């Protein structure tokens, strides 16, 4: 197990597991966590043995949002804007070839929900509380939420969540299509672990191709997207051992 200040990173065979680990502040996302997360994601991407990634949180919450006590400490707009892309941790997460399962419990607020929405499969514990409070605090989401929410929930429902910042529970997250499974709190890790483990047994290249097809497809015309799918499928057949 590799140790970072703000998260636990563990590899069990083909399954990588990142667990956010600032439990005293409900895993509030800060600059150190960004850097640790970035390093751990690079390790996952570079490790040919890892075939699936599980992301979860230590303690009472998955992630209660960004650590606002650090906000406003960026030296200038110019630097802040450059750093967003120098350490593009969200791009790294989106660009992972392996499937990402996110196990959500306790609080999943702001950046917490945005991180979850950058994964592939979201499973929530029944008792989870969700919210997107940024606009109520004079901000907008900064980890892709303004883009990923309306690509999962419908755009009007997504905008309502952003504008009102209201809290909602796991059942509503399921209805809004922000998560696809809701399980009893005590079963969460076992269910998420099994889902990730099952995906880790799949052909690595085929899974990567499926992720790629579903990410890129919506940005193409249907005709172009179907051609892409055919190319990816032919490639995966040719790559199979005889």
């Amino acid at each position, binding site marked *: 197990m590799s140790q970072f200040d703000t998260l636990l990173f563990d590899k069990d065979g083909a399954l990588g597991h990142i667990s956010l680990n600032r439990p005293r502040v409900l895993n509030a996302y800060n600059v150190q966590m960004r850097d640790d997360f970035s390093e751990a994601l690079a390790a996952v991407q570079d490790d040919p043995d890892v075939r699936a990634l599980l992301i979860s949180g230590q303690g009472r919450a998955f992630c209660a949002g960004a650590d*606002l006590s650090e906000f406003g400490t960026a030296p200038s707009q110019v630097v802040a804007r450059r750093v967003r892309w120098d350490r593009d941790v969200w791009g790294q997460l989106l660009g992972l070839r392996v499937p990402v399962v996110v196990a959500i419990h306790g609080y999943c607020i702001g950046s917490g929900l945005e991180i979850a929405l950058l994964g592939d499969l979201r499973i929530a514990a029944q008792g989870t509380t969700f919210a997107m409070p940024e*606009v109520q605090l004079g901000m*907008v989401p900064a980890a892709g939420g303004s883009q990923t929410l309306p690509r999962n929930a419908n755009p009007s*429902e997504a*905008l309502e969540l952003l504008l009102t910042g209201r809290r909602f529970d796991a059942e509503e997250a399921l209805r809004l299509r922000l998560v696809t499974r809701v399980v009893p709190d005590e079963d969460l890790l076992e269910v998420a672990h099994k889902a990730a483990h099952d995906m880790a047994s799949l052909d690595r290249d085929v899974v990567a191709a499926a992720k790629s097809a579903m990410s890129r497809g919506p940005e193409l015309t249907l005709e172009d997207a179907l051609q892409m799918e055919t190319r990816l499928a032919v490639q995966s057949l040719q790559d199979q051992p005889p």
Partner: protein
Amino acid sequence: MVEVLYRLLEFREEHPVATLTLANAGSGNRIDAVLAAELREACRAVMDDEDIHLLILTGSGEVFSVGRETKQEDSAPGLDWMVQLQVASTLAALPIPILVAVNGDALDHGLELALAGDLRVAASNARLGLTDLSRGVLPWDGGTQRLPRLVGQAWARDMILTSRVIDAHQALALGLVNRVVEADRLMAEVRQLADTILMGGPIAARYAKEALRKGMDLSLGQGLGLEADLNVILQSTADRAEGIQSFLQKRQPKFTGR
């Protein structure tokens, strides 16, 4: 409070809220050339007034808006006639949150207008549908585009191709409206929703809408870039600093829109 009198539209400004009420009562609030022109004019006025942070759109009487203006016998069918009546895109272009109080039936052009808003709250007795095809007409104020983007292709095709009219509760299940309440509680519910939104940062609310609306026309990568840029612009606002301070000091923020 300022009330601007139009012939078929009531336009009330109570900063930071503006309310537009369709008042073409004799014809079920049908959007004719006069009402369409007045709606576009009112949208321009709202656009020019930076102190309006939220728009409420509703209908007077028992219906929101039903039916579609039909061609006059003596006029040749054409683009000019259609453009005169189109209003949804002007409404949708407003940068502020738009709440639509669907106080009764929203059919055909009426539903297309409602679709151009951001959040819809419907009275429980309201019915919604695009029935144009049953009369041999195509919806032409955004219905074929905005409906599937909101409720998905399956339901949009069902509704448009079968001219099916659904009730408010079905509309809620599809995500076509955000909330359903009894008719006599509708405006109270909409005002409460407005008050909640107005507690947030007004610039942030505009940018959240912009990021979401524009982002849906972009690739995910481009959308993330837009979101990041809007974040950097927001860093220069007093409201963002106030939001962070209020959170750290555990008090309600006081936003100034600056």
